[in-house]
């Protein structure tokens, strides 16, 4: 192995691909190394059942993907199409449900069916969420400042943040400070009276988190799910046509088009450090590759605790990496269905099954689901976020057949402190299926094939430590300039020539591509190369 690259990116997930694409666009000779035979990481569509049947195996819906990245990497030209989906529903055990319709007046009337006041309160609730979204969105494509630094760029960025915060006005600053530290339950209680209305909003506060709806900090997690958009429609979610892998495929096509090279099928054994400088990677298959810059798109712990020699790092730094909260809390079922399940409560309503469906009545029930996680078992009455993308995207399955994505909260990384067994994985799958069967009799008979994923599978296959989908808890102690750890929020690793671009870094998880883009901007700046990363589109 004599060829030396300008840059090596470890991990062909969407952030690694985004990072690599911007580096390649800037003319850097870039190599992407990926441990799996396929690219995409958690942004992947695989045909596990039949060739004409695709799953979005991990991430399953798209909203957060920065439109600036979409446009500047020309992802439309490389085949990506994101289609918004309409409707969502929360079904209660007593056979009642609350739907969210595409038509706003219909949605208002639907809430009014449960509470007139809550229908009206929804206007204020949406407004306040939008206010927080507008504030946070402008920072997504900016490198967080170091608040302890006196470097001009940090001071300027701190001033920018301060100025934007002041623009909010007195009341909104108070609201913001409270919002970042509140639980989603407390937050919803300030607006709504009806338990089902509250339950319908609460799931976004805990999806992907090892916190409960009553844990402080979960209000922000809701924001993290609401700050995306589809074509400017804030808070809207969509499907990537062909499954989430279409996003990675388009990014990879862009990367390849700019002469990026990719090596798949062998993971990184060690990041090679010489004289305090990262110089390359040694793969598990023995191959070594060298470059001026090494970018890790692996999680923070995987990068520093598993793929580096501890002697190359400061013990204090390693301690902080060990303390990084990255707790697995979710699992997933990917199911091939022989037809559309019939949810008794919906009485054939064709609109609400096109979006995300939930089986929950109250925030209390959701908190109890979390109690099981704390006890080291998967929720016996789990919270489910399920969708049937094939109702909207007909490219995923044969006509009349369907792919159902069932995201499950809460699923611990270990069962009572011990590794998952294959039998337990199957039992977990059965718990979820039984839950759905209760609401949709006959559901089990529709199942043709099923992939069950617990945090174990997520870590083993994708490399997400403990199976945490956000690659690190999204709480204030691990957000903004605290992400992933204080002092290292600007995408530089403590070793020279080495960078981080995974969702462990700011602004965090979700198929957003902002960490990958922000890291590329820093790298290109350090190398004195022309910046290829766009600025965020501001909205006054």
């Amino acid at each position: 192995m004599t060829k030396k690259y300008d840059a090596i990116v470890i991990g062909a997930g969407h952030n690694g691909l985004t990072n690599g694409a911007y580096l390649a666009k800037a003319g850097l000779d870039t190599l992407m190394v990926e441990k799996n035979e396929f690219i995409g990481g958690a942004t992947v569509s695989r045909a596990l059942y039949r060739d004409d049947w695709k799953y979005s195996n991990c991430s399953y819906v798209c909203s957060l993907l920065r439109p600036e990245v979409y446009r500047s990497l020309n992802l439309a030209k490389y085949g990506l199409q994101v289609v918004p989906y309409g409707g969502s529903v929360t079904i209660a055990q007593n056979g009642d449900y609350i739907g969210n319709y595409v038509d706003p007046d219909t949605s208002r009337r639907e809430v009014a069916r449960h509470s007139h006041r809550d229908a009206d309160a929804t206007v204020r609730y949406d407004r306040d969420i939008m206010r927080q979204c507008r504030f946070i969105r402008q920072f997504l494509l900016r490198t967080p400042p170091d608040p302890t630094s006196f470097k001009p760029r940090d001071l300027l960025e701190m001033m920018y943040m301060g100025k934007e915060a002041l623009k909010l006005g007195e009341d909104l600053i108070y609201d913001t400070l409270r919002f970042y530290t509140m639980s989603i339950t407390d937050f919803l209680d300030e607006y709504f009276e009806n338990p089902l209305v509250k339950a319908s909003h609460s799931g976004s506060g805990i999806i992907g988190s090892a916190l409960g709806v009553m844990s402080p900090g979960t209000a922000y997690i809701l924001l993290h799910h609401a700050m995306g958009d589809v074509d400017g429609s804030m808070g809207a979610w969509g499907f990537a046509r062909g499954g989430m892998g279409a996003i990675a495929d388009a990014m990879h096509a862009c990367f390849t088009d700019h002469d990026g090279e990719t090596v798949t099928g062998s993971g990184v054994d060690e990041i090679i450090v010489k004289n305090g400088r990262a110089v390359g990677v040694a793969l598990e298959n023995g191959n070594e590759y060298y470059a001026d810059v090494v970018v890790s798109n692996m999680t923070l712990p995987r990068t520093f605790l598993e793929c580096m020699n501890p002697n190359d790092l400061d013990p204090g730094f390693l301690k902080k990496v060990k303390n990084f909260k990255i707790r697995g809390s979710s699992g997933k079922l990917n199911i091939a269905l022989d037809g559309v399940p019939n949810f008794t409560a919906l009485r054939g309503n064709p609109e609400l099954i096109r979006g995300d469906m939930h089986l929950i009545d109250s925030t209390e029930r959701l908190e109890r689901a979390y109690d099981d996680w704390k006890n080291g078992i998967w929720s016996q009455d789990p919270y489910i976020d399920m969708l049937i993308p094939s109702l909207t995207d007909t490219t995923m399955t044969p006509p009349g057949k369907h792919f159902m994505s069932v995201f499950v909260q809460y699923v611990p990384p270990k069962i009572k402190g011990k590794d998952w067994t294959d039998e337990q994985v199957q039992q977990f799958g059965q718990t979820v299926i039984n839950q759905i069967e209760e609401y949709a009799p006959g559901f089990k008979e529709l199942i043709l094939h099923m992939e069950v994923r617990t945090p174990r599978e997520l870590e083993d296959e994708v490399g997400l430590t403990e199976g945490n989908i956000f690659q690190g808890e999204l709480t204030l102690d691990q957000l903004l300039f605290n992400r992933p750890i204080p002092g290292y929020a600007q995408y530089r690793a403590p070793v020279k020539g080495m960078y981080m671009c995974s969702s462990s870094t700011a602004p965090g998880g979700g198929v957003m591509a902002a960490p990958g883009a922000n890291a590329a901007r820093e790298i290109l700046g350090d190398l004195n190369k022309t910046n290829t990363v766009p600025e965020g589109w501001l909205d006054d």
Partner: protein
Amino acid sequence: MRTVDFSREDHYKNAVFPSPFHSRQKQHNKLREWSRWSDYLSVPAYWCESMEYFAGRNACGVFDITPMVKHLVTGPDALPYLNRLMTRDVSKIKPGRVGYSVWCNEQGRVIDDGTIFHLTEGVYRICSQEHQIDWFMTNTLGFDVTIVEDTHDVAGLALQGPTSCAVLRDMGLDGIENLTPFGLTYFDFHGTELMVSRTGFTGDLGYELWTSPENAEMLWDRLFEAGEQRGIKAMGSDALELLRIEAGFILAGADFLPAAEAVRPTHTRSPFELGLGWLVSFDKGVFNGRQALLEEKQNGSRFHLVKLDIDGNKPANQSFVYTKNKKYAGTVTSAMWSPSAKASIALASLEAPLGKPGEEFEVEIYYQRELKWSRVMAPARVVKDVFWDPPRKRQTPPADF
């Protein structure tokens, strides 16, 4: 009878619902176009916007106001409650009278505007553009008061224009000519109760008729029979929009942003900033926004909503307004060519202290002639009086035409 029953879970099968006047609207709707107003189908224009406008100024026009959000406020504390909620002194609205009002949040920004009908002693109806039940209920703390939204339990028609009084008299409403502006009264109408108020959104002689949804079609039919010889026409929302701008009435969502929806809090307006200082009564005790409004009165407002009389013949929709020195002054919020005033008129929000009566500005108007766009900087001045203010609006009893 309710016009629409939203308690059924299959309501989603329709996004919008027919008003109780729908069958009759359909007969008149030559253009076969429907728009939506909240939960209901509404008609933008039945046959010709201009003809419908002139029916409102020259004869009379009928407009369906059923979709307007309505609340019934009752209980021993109805009056103190309303005085807490509203900026104006509601005690001055006696039984049988109607008053225009706004209500604010604690920052003194307008949540919505609407009309307060003092139906009978201690019983009030509040009509508003936006849904308000959560805010109204939030304010009931400490008051013995009952509030229900009865939007779908009441059908309403506006009859507006110079012949409207004569039409109602001919329809059999004896003594209607004695109803003074902002008065309301009840009639026994073919065995049903009909409430009539001398109110409207056109700044002209006009009435609003309120009944139970099951009587709606009968009311419409009698009205059109009685009005046939007096030029009665069904009127759509496009014509009404012209009539209300001429009358200088503001519209939520056009001339101001309702505070409950404002993602950008600075984009909201106070009553003073909307020229509605006369609706703020500081001497009645505590009310929502009082402290903030007192401070604003001392420190000055940020904006002035003004009426602009613009030179030339081009309507100034969506225009910027500049000072004579070409400095940014504000934007137009509503504009039109006024067929009655024969002038290009506009409502505009200007940055304070700009906007005093008589002050001169320039309005940047983009206009199109056969697909070619041009721009003109039209001189304009702030006027104090509304653009259309006929004496018949106030006359009691009104003349027949």
